[in-house]
């Protein structure tokens, strides 16, 4: 049986996975959807949301008694820059 390989994700990678998940759902999404997309537990997702809001990458919005997380312009730019950098690093064999 092949040994399971546990991959370490950097903080930037987790942020990007959250932002990409929101982007995938049209720029705003409920936490449950993001949770699956970013492959995180509820507690960890909430902790990261706090930091993302603080950095101005994500905005919290209330819609019909539900909380929705919206990608800001800064968040969109961060995501694009990260994708560029990821491609650059990968060209040299560096994984993020």
């Amino acid at each position, binding site marked *: 049986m092949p040994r399971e390989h546990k991959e370490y994700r950097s903080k930037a990678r987790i942020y990007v996975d959250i932002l990409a998940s929101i982007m995938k759902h049209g720029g705003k999404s409920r936490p449950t959807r993001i949770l699956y997309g970013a492959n995180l537990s509820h507690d960890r997702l909430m902790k990261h949301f706090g930091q993302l809001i603080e950095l101005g990458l994500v905005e919290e919005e209330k819609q019909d008694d539900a909380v929705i997380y919206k990608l800001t312009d800064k968040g969109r730019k961060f995501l*694009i820059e990260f994708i560029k950098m990821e491609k*650059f690093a990968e060209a040299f064999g*560096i*994984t*993020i």
Partner: protein
Amino acid sequence: MEFVSSFISLLVGYYALKGYKEFAIKGLFFLYLGFIILGIGTFLRVFSATYFVILLRALEPAPHLRSLINLAGLIYTLTQLIAYSFFTATYILQAKALGERSLELGMVSAVLFPIYGLFFNPSLELIAIVMLGFITVHSFNNWALKRSSGSALVFLGFGFMFLSHLLFLFMIMEPMLLFFGQVTQLAGFMCLLVMLARVSRVHA
């Protein structure tokens, strides 16, 4: 030609620094150091070569001038070797992160050999060839795994640089090889520039 190469090298170095600072991608740090040192070294060579040409036209060739030219050449080669050491370190660290334990010993010796070689081997060009050979093989491995255009361009970039050093090595026999070496070196840097342009074109 070398001026363009130095500019491209500094540009790639700047991009690596940006990635290291903004996203804390540790692997990009050595890449940044390598390309910045290579860029500065190449620029200094262009500058010093132009200066010596002007000086030789104005003055009679003197022995102290010849030793000065040799010193400038030595400094340039050393900056190149330092830069290649950082590229080698990038690939070693990456291999470690991916858990290629069986290759570890070979890789460490590949880095140590050129450094120790500095004390025993008078031909610095040969050391540069050994280091660039190692880097080229690793960039080829990366391309074979990823099959992306970016990794292909990096492989071609380092491959051309490797070839240029081989041509420089044999220029004592055929002076025209210096020109071909310069062209090949520029081709290597142009590949890196194309790679940089391609990754910068990513949209959301």
